[in-house]
């Protein structure tokens, strides 16, 4: 092969590789993309049944319930307008608490409840997942500032 041909073949191979990688990456991206919805969005029909999405909101005080001896828990998540029940069979994170913000990954079940395979409640006690905080603000319930907790 002449050097010129060699270069052309080389460049062609690299470009083919890049194209293939880009296609695979975009597919993986699309498949693993999850939208964030509030209970109101879900009730408005944003989330198709069976597709995975993230549900966010506040856990209603006193709504956590489990049958004695069962791994499965249920709790209600609200955006102050609408409420959904989340069903989860697993170990809840340490920072999960009633009255606080939470994000659950999972899908909508036929009975209108949300089946979560992952529940996220993170970091410090004032922590509010940014999406949940923004959602609450949009509904006119701003969350307190970061330093409020010391004055209690």
């Amino acid at each position, binding site marked *: 092969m002449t050097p010129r041909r060699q270069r052309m073949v080389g460049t062609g191979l690299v470009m083919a590789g890049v194209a293939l990688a880009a296609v695979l990456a975009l597919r993986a991206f699309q498949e693993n*993309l999850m939208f964030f919805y509030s209970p109101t969005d879900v009730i408005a029909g944003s989330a198709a049944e069976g597709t995975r999405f993230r549900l966010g909101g506040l856990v209603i005080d006193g709504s956590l319930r489990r049958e004695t001896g069962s791994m499965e828990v249920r709790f209600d998540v609200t955006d102050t307008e609408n409420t959904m029940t989340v069903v989860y069979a697993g170990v809840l994170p340490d920072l999960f608490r009633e009255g606080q913000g939470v994000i659950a*990954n999972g899908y909508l079940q036929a009975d209108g409840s949300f089946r979560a395979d992952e529940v996220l409640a993170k970091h410090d006690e004032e922590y509010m997942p940014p999406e949940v905080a923004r959602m609450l603000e949009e509904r006119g319930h701003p969350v307190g500032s970061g330093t409020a907790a010391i004055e209690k």
Partner: protein
Amino acid sequence: MTPEIGQLCLILALCVAAIQSVLPVAGAQFGNPAWIAVARPAAVTQLLFIALAFICLSWAFVENDFSVLYVATNSNSELPLMFRLAAVWGAHEGSLLLWVLILAIWTSAVALLSRTLPDVVVAQVLGVMGMINLGFLLFILFTSNPFERLFPVPLDGNDLNPLLQDPALIIHPPMLYTGYVGFSVAFAFAVAAMLSGRLDQQWARWARPWTTTAWLFLTVGIALGSWWAYYELGWGGWWFWDPVENASFMPWLAGTALIHSLAVTEKRGLFKSSTLLLAIGTFSLSLLGTFLVRSGVLVSVHAFASDPARGLFILIFLAVVVGGALSLYAWRARSLETSVGFSPVSRETFLLLNSILLVAATGLILFGTLAPLIAEAMNLGKISVGAPYFEFVFPIVMVPLLLVLGVGMHSVWRSTDASLLARRLRWPAAIAVLVGISLPWFAWGEAGLLTVIGSIIGLTTGAWVIGSVLLNPIARLRGKGPRLTRSMIGMHLAHLGIGMTVIGITVTSSFNIEIDQRIAPGETVTVGGYAFRFDGLEEIAGANYEAVRGTFTVSRGDREIAKMIPEKRVYRVQTSAMTEAGIDVGWTRDLFVALGEPLGDGSWSVRIQYKPMIRFIWLGALVMALGGLVAVSDRRYRSRYPVADKSPDQPTDLATA
């Protein structure tokens, strides 16, 4: 008084930084030796003031001075002293102070350890680093002052986040920041090269040890973070593709590419543009990481309370630094490039592929990390990109990279005989395939088809890298082959570490067993051939927490292997629960038990895991870092080279490849 002294020190440091970023650079440009001479003393003075400020803040923590807002928010009189000191960098303001302290240390290190460099270069490098620190000091003073007072003074503090009350926190952020910030040296060298128009092999030799040192700290920092997440976040995951983890991983990937590109620039005087771009890119990614963490724009376990003003400031700063450096590049880079030929099968080609693939991996991660931001800005809805995206695309790039690595190590500069290469590498290749196919079978038995394919690819790749690394040392033992210099030994070690980490990741992800299970005292659960018996619970009290401690006896066959004592802690001040997992550590596997919640009838939900070879992930990272350390200690970085060397493109010592 102390906090005010601290604040004053920061303001003085700001003034010094301003002088340091203007005078030496101007002096270098206009040839004024007096201005150039300002650089070194300014760097050291700046370090002095910032260190004083840092000591002042630490003192406020030691003394429990809750009139300082930052102390009141992040400490408590019950908090043990060791954690009070670590709490200095436990939240936003203090961690930024640590950032500038480390940058000042790097700057002074360059000032003091650069006797072999021409003063003009030193002035430019220190000037650029001064500009960066100027930006960060402004950021601290205007948006994130750690010395802000609180009135009325609370009786006690709000305590440090319990997640952070851990020995690893004491070293993880400093290590990580040392790495992150250390890339500013490479960045400053790149800017200096563009300003002066001097980018020769000597330049690359100056920049290399600094870059490698930053890289090795970042490697250790990332590994520590992963290890900490594994045992302290409580649930046995060691990497979550969380935005903040990605933020530290992207500079690492780009920095790895930079190290290799620098090698080509030093040995062959080639790839100058890509070296410059990688130096700019690596540090920009470090800054981007800081922006992502500090602005709170992304959902992350690390996101502190968000503050739009902070995000905006860093975004502007980022635009100025990256934009400035790239404009300079556009203006000057063409005049620096030299062209020297090399054949398609040569070390140059393999190192070029290495850079391309590492940059591709960085790009894919960057895309996945920023996609939620882009979608939100374009009003496409609130999205998140799950870990499976990263787990899928990352290996697509990494597997070819590691295959290339094995070949590239044995190629030589300019032109390599392909058939010779194939002959040398046939044994490692054969052994790698054999290991990849047989090991999963023998060691871990059955698994799903996809898992088996994944583990075969991963193990073959890892074994291939290790086999290729071992060729030279084995030849050496048999009295053949070239003597290995320190920088070659370092290279071999780092690649050995990569191979170990790849094997650890492959085996852990493929054959890890994880179950969430209800268990009552006296009952036994069997996981991966290990029987876990739940013996019971007791209540204990720690320094600033109360805890329930479970006892599990683990046995295999008739033999008792370990007692494990996972805890569920409740910290008194923040009343937050913390899971302390029980972990039985081993070379070939970890056993992991974490308490969930009581289920009401005396039984508990627990998570039990069997994690084969997980230690290799972090052990490999440590070996990589050790490799970096050995490479940096190479003699040629310490020897004094003629300062006036102006013959750029004469390959000096090809023998020490």
